[in-house]
């Protein structure tokens, strides 16, 4: 069948497409190629990879959202679907908006039951084209992907030369592959141009390029650790945190090798499990190194005991939890924000931790670096809660910057001279207004020795079982944690004239919630916006809660964990707090937020 020009009006730089593939067929690179091309045309775009916890043969999707105003959060329906997976084609076609498009491989006839009156089908004989032009079986499979990418270039009006450049960069050193890719791309473009009237009503048009970059949160966080001066890293592989350590390793190989000696100014240990990973970090931090680990839910649970040790023995430790869908193994390749409560109070006994909540890769870089300052200043574990969406998907964010005047905040660390001058060194007694005690590093001098322990201890670190001595120390720990509030990153707040409702959210929900607020504004409904970025909460968080009659806490978990934390750790009256919960494992989109606000307004 030939293309029927869709009745829909032209929509420039404002559409969403979904690419449905089978994992392990090499579609990933083709998909990101399209997304990157759009990015290079200066158009705000996002690419979300919905991949299975499997290596080959299961369904995988890639969603591209293009939006001139920067609202590139996830949507739930698509203007165009590239349907390359027979297992899911029915669902995939069903998700196309009315008057939308379906691109499929017409080498094989499409099951008639899959036809919809209200969408346009763009059949392209991808398999046939590739079989005609490529000999190696491997190429025939891989190049199908590049071919549909080529077709999209034509259909969406993407500038072909942008792709030429991309391919040339990508395969700079691989002539043969480069040629193959160019050919496949051309095949798709030509076929589309010859067969359909291109571009479709949904199309891309160059915008003035901004100073932004395309980066995923794990890469950014790893870079933050490098810049903060982390020297020891220990980890145990787990999706979706693995790529963070991979990136840290790459950056260290590039930036941390002594030019003269060729020796490494870092040490990364792939531990035997997460207990060891955090143990290594705690040992290194006790010894004075900036050390961190990255993990996800199951690893976090295994780290509970040692987190309590670090809290009580007052040892800095940085832990990055890239959250995924729980409980238990859950859905390892789906996103969620469901470790908030466990992170806040991890371990038995009375414990409280410092948390950071980056909302995008830019903040992953910034907060990762900041974690080390906070951990060392307050001599306690700091947990940065990222998630799969923020950590593994490519985001368009402002260029990262670094202030070369930065000096690491090591907190109160006494050196040999200070110890000399000091009358006596009390490891665990309040030394500053923020209830922090002075620490020393092993090897400093005979005067600096103390005994770190997770057992009851006096202000000198001596073992005790006397209530008063024990309480002195644990009371200070509570005060210390409270004092950290002043040092947390401020929440992002956008007040709106006459808004009775305030939307409070966290992390990667950012874009979708902003979009919701924008859409609500279009229909004359106002809502304030706050995204918390650290725990303990500071004054501004309290202020925002107080300013609004009703609060809706938007988060990606079943049990309203952020709402829980706000209920417990601010003075807010919980009856004021409502929830918008999205926890199916996909990144948040604006619709449910809009609906919830309207419902509340209605009531």
């Amino acid at each position, binding site marked *: 069948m030939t293309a029927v020009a869709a009745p829909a009006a032209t929509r420039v730089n404002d559409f969403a497409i979904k690419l449905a593939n089978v994992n392990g067929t090499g579609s990933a690179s083709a998909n990101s190629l399209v997304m990157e091309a759009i990015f290079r045309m200066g158009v705000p775009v996002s690419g979300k990879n919905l991949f299975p916890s499997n290596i080959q043969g299961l369904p995988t999707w890639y969603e591209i959202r293009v939006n001139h105003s920067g609202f590139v959060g996830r949507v739930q329906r698509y203007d165009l679907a590239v349907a390359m997976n027979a297992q899911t084609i029915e669902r995939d076609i069903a998700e196309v908006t009315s008057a939308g498009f379906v691109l499929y491989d017409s080498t094989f006839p499409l099951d008639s039951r899959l036809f919809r009156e209200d969408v346009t089908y763009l059949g392209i004989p991808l398999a046939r084209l590739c079989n005609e032009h490529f000999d190696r079986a491997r190429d025939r499979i891989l190049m199908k992907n590049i071919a549909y990418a080529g077709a999209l270039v034509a259909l969406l009006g993407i500038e072909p030369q942008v792709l030429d450049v991309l391919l040339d960069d990508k395969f700079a050193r691989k002539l043969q592959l480069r040629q193959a890719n160019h050919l496949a791309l051309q095949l798709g473009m030509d076929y589309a141009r010859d067969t359909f009237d291109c571009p479709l009503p949904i199309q891309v048009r160059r915008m003035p390029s901004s100073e*932004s*970059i395309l*980066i995923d949160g794990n890469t950014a966080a790893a*870079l933050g650790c*490098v*810049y903060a*001066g*982390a*020297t*020891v890293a*220990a980890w145990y592989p787990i999706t979706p945190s693995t790529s963070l350590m991979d990136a840290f390793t790459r950056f260290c190989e590039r*930036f*941390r090798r002594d030019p003269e*000696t060729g*020796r*490494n*100014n*870092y*040490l*990364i*240990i792939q*531990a*035997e499990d997460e207990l*060891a990973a955090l*143990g*290594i*970090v*705690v*040992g*290194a*931090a*006790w*010894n*004075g*190194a900036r*050390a961190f680990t990255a993990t996800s839910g199951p690893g976090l649970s295994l780290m509970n005991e*040692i987190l309590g040790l670090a809290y009580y*023995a007052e040892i800095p430790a940085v832990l990055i939890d890239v959250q995924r869908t729980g409980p238990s193994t859950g859905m390892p390749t789906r996103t969620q924000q469901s470790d908030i409560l466990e992170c806040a109070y991890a371990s038995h006994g009375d414990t409280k931790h410092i948390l950071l909540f980056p909302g995008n890769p830019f903040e992953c870089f910034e907060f990762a670096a900041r974690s080390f300052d906070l951990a060392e200043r307050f001599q306690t574990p700091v947990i940065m809660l990222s998630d799969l969406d923020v950590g593994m998907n490519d985001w368009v964010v402002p*260029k*990262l*910057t*670094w202030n*070369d005047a*930065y000096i*690491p905040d090591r907190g109160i660390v006494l050196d040999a001279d200070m110890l000399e001058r000091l009358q006596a060194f009390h490891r665990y007694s309040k030394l500053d207004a923020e209830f922090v005690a002075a620490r*020393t590093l*092993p*090897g*400093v*001098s*005979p005067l*600096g*020795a*103390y*005994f*770190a*322990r*997770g*057992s009851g201890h006096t202000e000198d670190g001596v*073992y005790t079982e006397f209530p008063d001595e024990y309480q002195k120390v644990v009371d200070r720990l509570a005060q210390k944690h409270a004092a950290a509030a002043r040092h947390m990153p401020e929440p992002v707040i956008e007040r709106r004239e006459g808004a009775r409702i305030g939307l409070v959210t966290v992390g990667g929900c950012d874009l979708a919630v902003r979009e919701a607020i924008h859409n609500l504004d279009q229909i004359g409904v106002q809502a304030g916006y706050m995204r918390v970025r650290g725990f303990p909460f500071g004054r501004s968080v309290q202020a925002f809660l107080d300013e609004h009659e009703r609060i809706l806490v938007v988060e990606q978990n079943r049990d309203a964990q952020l709402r829980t934390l706000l209920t417990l750790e601010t003075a807010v009256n919980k009856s004021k707090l409502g929830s918008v919960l999205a926890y199916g494992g996909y990144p948040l989109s604006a619709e449910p937020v809009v609906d919830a606000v309207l419902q509340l307004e209605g009531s």
Partner: protein
Amino acid sequence: MPSITKPLVPLLDLPRNSIGLTQREYEGAMSTLCAGCGHDSITAALVQALWELDVQPHMIAKLSGIGCSSKTTAYFAGTAHGFNSVHGRMAAIATGAAAANRDLLYIGVSGDGDSLSIGLGQLIHAMRRNVRLMYVIENNGVYGLTKGQFSASADLGAVLKHGQKNLYAPIDPVGVGLAIGATFLARSFSGDKQQLIPILKAAAMHRGFALVDVLSPCVTFNDHEGSTKSYRYMRQHEVQATEADFIPFRTEVTASIPSGGVQSVTMHDGSVLHFRAAPPDYDPTDRVSVMRYLQERHEAGEVVTGVLYVDEEAPSLHELTNTTETPLVKLPHEALCPGSEALERLQRSWM
């Protein structure tokens, strides 16, 4: 228990080592263990070994897990930093410490429960990484601090005071070490200071991970008739495979080394470790024969002590990972932070 006699003798007339320190400077807090506990004898041996090694006490880092044995890190080298961590994870924590600062002497003290039950995975993997760490297991076959349950090193058929019988074969850390390629494996007995001290010195000088399994009777829960971890049993069944006789280079007293059947191993720092093999053909560098010998003696009901296996060729963690000579904790921030320009350059490819 050295720390207990502390108040009595005036410092002055005590002998001093080559850095001018007396044994006092290598002692720690007063022991709170049971009178007669084997662990305290090991503490005493550690004090003397460290003193003889002329190490600066504050350049030692002491780490332990949880247990009576793990408490002993508080009883020596009082001017060294100590870390009494959590049960079973000391090997990992010490690995991290060693990673951060390669200049300190790391001494880990653990128990059989701490190391062979809950901590077995961590111990094996620390050995596998050949972290430079002297790891002493104060092995009494029971969980002392929790009042005497069987540990994984309890003897098959051993009987506890209240009549319970152990049903499972003991795990021998030396055997496990041999199986997974550990590079220094020794066994001794808390009651035999004369043998223990040179072994501890050798372990301290070893290039990588040095496991010292010291049988250390628990006089309260496991020193009764029939316990192979009792003083009586050890005195009867101990067989010395090798006597370690350690001589740091700076004081060559080769005179004291007898000729014949002597096996020498040069430690990574150039000092030499001499083994006087009890069975003349015993070669502590040949894994296969070591395995065979130990297995045979074991079946003969004997406990072989001494430095049982050494491989000074195997590189340690820092050598394997090619980390810089300067301890990582001593690197200035400038050496670690690539700076804004590099960031600028890096991001070009992402724009």
